């Protein structure tokens, strides 16, 4: 009995020792794997940190830009409250999505999941690369309309002043400036509207090269139209200046006419 017990105990002990030895060997094996791949793991860790850092930096930059754009959108004067809300909502939605993505990226240690997160950042990037210039064009077009309204008001005031002086109102330079002013203001309005129309219905390319090229062309064409409108407003502003100068420094013939009229009134 004792012998049997001793034998069983011995067998159990050997089995236990073997088991412990195997576990120990496995542990050693695992450690050795870890130890053996320390250089590779550090490189991977460095890569993950690098990806996370770059992702966070790019996201922060976009969120900051969208915040600035949102401020400008809310300051626009010529779009409806509904359009303004919709545009701000789009910017805010993308910004919030990027914030969530940034948190996910910073918390991720799996390269597979991190890769997927970065891929979704690429998709968000594609939305952003279209949305940012789109909003810039809309903002510029809105400012063009504001300036058109302001210049038109000033032109109306100057015409009221001219109406009090027949000779000045029929002055060739005044007439030419007024005619050119109308042409330039009309051109600015047309170009600004065309710029917005060009980019209003664009969709993110999501990696499609053909769509990407079409979007880029539409955006560049719209920017050309904004510049044409800007130049037209500079020209119309010069027209106003010519009229102002003629009013404030009346031509000799006009001055004598005003003097004669005043005398006859007396």
């Amino acid at each position, binding site marked *: 009995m004792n012998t049997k017990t001793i034998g069983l105990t011995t067998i159990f002990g050997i089995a236990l020792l073997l088991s412990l030895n195997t576990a120990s060997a496995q542990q050693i094996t695992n450690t050795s794997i870890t130890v053996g791949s320390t250089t590779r793991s550090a490189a991977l860790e460095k890569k993950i940190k*690098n*990806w996370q850092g*770059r*992702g966070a930096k*790019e*996201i922060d*930059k*976009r969120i900051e830009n969208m915040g600035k754009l949102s401020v400008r959108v809310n300051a626009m004067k010529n779009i409806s409250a509904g359009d303004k809300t919709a545009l701000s909502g789009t910017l805010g939605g993308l910004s919030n999505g990027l914030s969530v993505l940034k948190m996910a990226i910073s918390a991720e240690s799996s390269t597979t999941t991190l890769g997927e997160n*970065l*891929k979704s*950042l*690429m998709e968000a*990037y594609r939305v*952003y*690369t279209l949305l*940012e*210039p789109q909003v*810039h*064009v809309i*903002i*510029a077009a809105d*400012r*063009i309309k*504001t*300036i058109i309204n*302001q*210049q038109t*008001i*000033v032109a109306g*005031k*100057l015409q*009221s*002043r001219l109406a009090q002086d027949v000779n000045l109102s029929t002055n060739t330079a005044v007439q030419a400036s007024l005619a050119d002013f109308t042409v330039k203001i009309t051109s600015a309005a047309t170009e600004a509207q065309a710029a917005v129309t060009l980019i209003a219905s664009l969709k993110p390319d999501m990696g499609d090269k053909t769509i990407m090229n079409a979007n*880029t062309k539409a*955006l*560049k064409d719209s*920017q050309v139209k*904004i*510049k044409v409108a*800007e130049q037209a*407003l*500079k020209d119309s*502003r010069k027209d*106003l*200046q010519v009229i*102002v100068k003629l009013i*404030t420094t009346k031509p000799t013939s006009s001055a004598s006419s005003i003097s004669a009229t005043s005398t006859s009134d007396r």
Partner: protein
Amino acid sequence: MSKTAKTWITVIIIIVLIIAVWIIWGGNKAVIPAPTPTPTADLQGTSNNASSSDLVSSGLTTAMNDNSDTAVASDLATIDAEMVGLGEDSKSADSSINNPPSSPGDGLQ
């Protein structure tokens, strides 16, 4: 009572009555309010009312329409400020179209 005394008393009474009548009549006359001109009469008056031409010559119309040199100069200054803003907007649009931000995936290998 002598005749002279009666005469003096009569004279005094008459004087007192005259003074009384004068005070009563004159006092009442002072209390009577002066006739107040009705608004209609005032508006229809001609001597102190300004005509439209008077308003023009006084500069009031000019002020209302804000056509003065100062107002126009102020408007033009506002326009010039907006033009500067438009130049910045245009540059921002140009930059975002021609120089898009780097892709977050670039170099992530």
